[in-house]
């Protein structure tokens, strides 16, 4: 009966949202849902207050996305209950295609001035990334949190390195030197890194996927409803990670429920995003130093090192009676000045081109040098491919990842080939 609780929760959430009708937004101009973390609420409040001061006849009401197991679930419930807001910021890029195909989102490229705006804000690769299969753009690139390699500076120095490892060979060498059986019980209890071993699809955003993007110079997983990941880059990533687990450089057990293993120096590296900065600053022990670096790449890698950007974008729902006004409000949110405010309040990167070189943001990066590393990385980040079955694609890859990388039950070639077949079958349905 335990799963019934989950289903009941879903039903009640839907009911709750249904009861919470859009009457407010009908009385005024727009209803805007933001993410519900403290910093983004503060930012949304700042934006809405300023907008309302300047536009008293077109007021915006802001509300954090209602509490639930995940914001994705709440948005889904709102779509089903036809109680969507006019605007939602924090839409995961991978979800957009599903909603776009269901006809619930406004094609932003049909709005006046959109194209000019997006070409000013983003480079062509980003625009291509957010363009749906039908050729329209349903999401406005808003923010990114690139996944990079966090490392303990003191440990790297103590291992005899000037800088953190950049290639697979360097990674193996550093890992070999760091790995230790501290209590001499015959088992390793100090690992070079850690990544969640759970098979849950989105866990691959913190190991396989950013490493694949790094090795393939930002390659795709799927294209034209076909799997395109069974290639040299993916093979190298699977081989690298399998070796990492085989040599016990990463723990196979879950370390996430205990004291922070990075801050307690049980591990020396972790693939993570800029949110780690505020956490580390708050909880790090005295003398602890850390920094970030690009994801490790194959030894023969050439070119820039890409990674996963974890992009969250803004959408306008078709339920909005005034999409043109919503679009005007979006331009206000995404102005250079408000992007700076967003950066200052949330420590998340606005997704705009050359942010690391734009003088408006230089004083922020001077005060927050670690964020500058992420801003530099921002030139080489990728989101996800546009597909309504993206979660299943990641799930199928994750199943093979587990069998090959973590438990060594399949060769990397076999695992990738099986994942490719399974994904292609998905598109045949």
């Amino acid at each position, binding site marked *: 009966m*335990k*799963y019934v609780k989950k289903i009941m929760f879903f039903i009640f959430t839907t009911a709750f949202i249904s009861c919470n009708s859009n009457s407010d937004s009908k009385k005024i101009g727009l209803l805007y849902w933001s993410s519900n973390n403290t910093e983004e609420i503060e930012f949304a409040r700042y934006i809405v207050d300023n907008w309302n001061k300047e536009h008293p006849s077109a007021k915006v009401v802001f509300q954090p996305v209602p509490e639930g197991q995940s914001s994705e679930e709440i948005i889904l419930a709102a779509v*089903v209950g036809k109680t969507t807001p006019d605007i939602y910021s924090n839409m995961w890029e991978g979800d957009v295609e*599903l909603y776009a195909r269901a006809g*619930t989102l406004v094609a932003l490229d049909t709005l006046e001035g959109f194209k000019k705006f997006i070409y000013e804000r983003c480079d062509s690769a980003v625009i291509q990334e957010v363009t749906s299969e039908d050729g329209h753009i349903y999401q406005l690139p808003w923010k990114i949190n690139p996944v990079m390699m966090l490392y303990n500076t003191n440990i790297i120095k103590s291992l005899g390195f000037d800088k953190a490892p950049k290639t697979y060979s360097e990674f193996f060498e550093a890992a070999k030197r760091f790995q230790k059986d501290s209590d001499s019980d015959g088992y390793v209890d100090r690992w070079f890194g850690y990544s969640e071993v759970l098979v849950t699809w989105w866990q691959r955003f913190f190991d396989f996927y950013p490493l694949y993007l790094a090795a393939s110079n930002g390659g795709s997983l799927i294209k034209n409803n076909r799997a395109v990941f069974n290639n040299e880059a993916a093979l190298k990533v699977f081989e690298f990670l399998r070796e990492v687990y085989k040599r016990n450089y990463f723990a*196979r*057990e879950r370390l996430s*429920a205990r004291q922070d293993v990075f801050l307690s120096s049980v591990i020396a590296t972790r693939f993570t995003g800029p949110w780690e900065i505020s956490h580390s600053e708050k909880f790090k022990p005295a003398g602890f130093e850390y920094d970030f670096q690009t994801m490790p790449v194959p030894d023969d890698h050439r070119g820039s090192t890409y990674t996963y950007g974890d992009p969250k974008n803004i959408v306008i729902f078709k339920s909005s009676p005034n999409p043109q006004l919503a679009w005007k409000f979006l331009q206000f949110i995404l102005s250079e000045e408000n992007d700076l405010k967003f950066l200052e309040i949330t420590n998340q990167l606005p997704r705009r081109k050359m942010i690391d070189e734009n003088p408006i943001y230089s004083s922020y990066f001077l005060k927050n040098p670690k964020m500058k590393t992420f801003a530099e990385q921002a030139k080489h980040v990728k989101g996800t491919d546009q597909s309504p079955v993206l979660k299943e694609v990641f799930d199928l890859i994750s199943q093979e990842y587990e*069998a090959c990388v*973590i438990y060594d039950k399949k060769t990397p070639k076999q695992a990738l080939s099986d994942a490719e077949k399974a994904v292609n079958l998905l598109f045949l349905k």
Partner: protein
Amino acid sequence: MKKKITPYLLVSPYIIHFLVFVAFPVGFSIYLTFNDWNIISPMKFIGLSNYKRLFNDAIFWKSVFNTLIFLMIHIPLQIIIALFLAELLNQKIKLRGFFRGAFFLPVIVSGVVVTILWQQLYGYDTGLLNRLLIKIGLGKVGWLTDPSWAMPSIAVMATWKNVGLYIVLFLVGLQTVPLQYYEAADLEGATHIQKFFKITLPLINPTIFMVVVLSTIGGFSLFIEPYVMTGGGPLNSTISAVLYIYKQGFFYYHMGYAATLGFFFALIILSVVIMQKKFVEKDK
């Protein structure tokens, strides 16, 4: 006329509740099994495709197999431990009330809290169990990371969590056994073990059946433990049928397929319970 309406009015709250919360969801679920529906797009009639897919879905059958493995470990273990402890707690021992409360405590603790606690005990490098094994000179066991150990580990944890409830049921059963049977057996010189097998066990048979049925139905709904502890891994060795149905429905929004799996799984549960009932009736 008034006489005819009043009884219907009196039962109407139940009838309305039944229609809205039981009949409609069940009927709608059955209708869904013939459709492809991702909640937000219109439903598409696909005939028996979901059923065809079910029979070829290796992970679903693996999840059913895993659930049966769980039941095969969990039910006997639960009955033996619960009966043993109930027998002890039925004696006049010191602090009996305290022990009865202590054994029941895990039942009222949140399932998520219990699983997180046991995750620490089962930890490969830092877990208490492996530390004990090392102390006595044995090797570590991958309680949750070794595919052959993961499901038995979950079954042991679920037994620990639920055993208190079944102790209470067995205590009730034990207290219904007339004392004169034991007095007569004492006069005949029967040992404690003989009394247990010849008097206690046959007389608490209905309680045992109830415990088996309740544990079976409870065991078939295994969800929180693998969801929190292993996510269904390693290598799908702990993915339970309900967890798989949940993933299909709420991860991938395959509502039609999830309904088909749920409907089919309900039939499996029904068959098992009928078989258990027939077995017990035959035994009588």
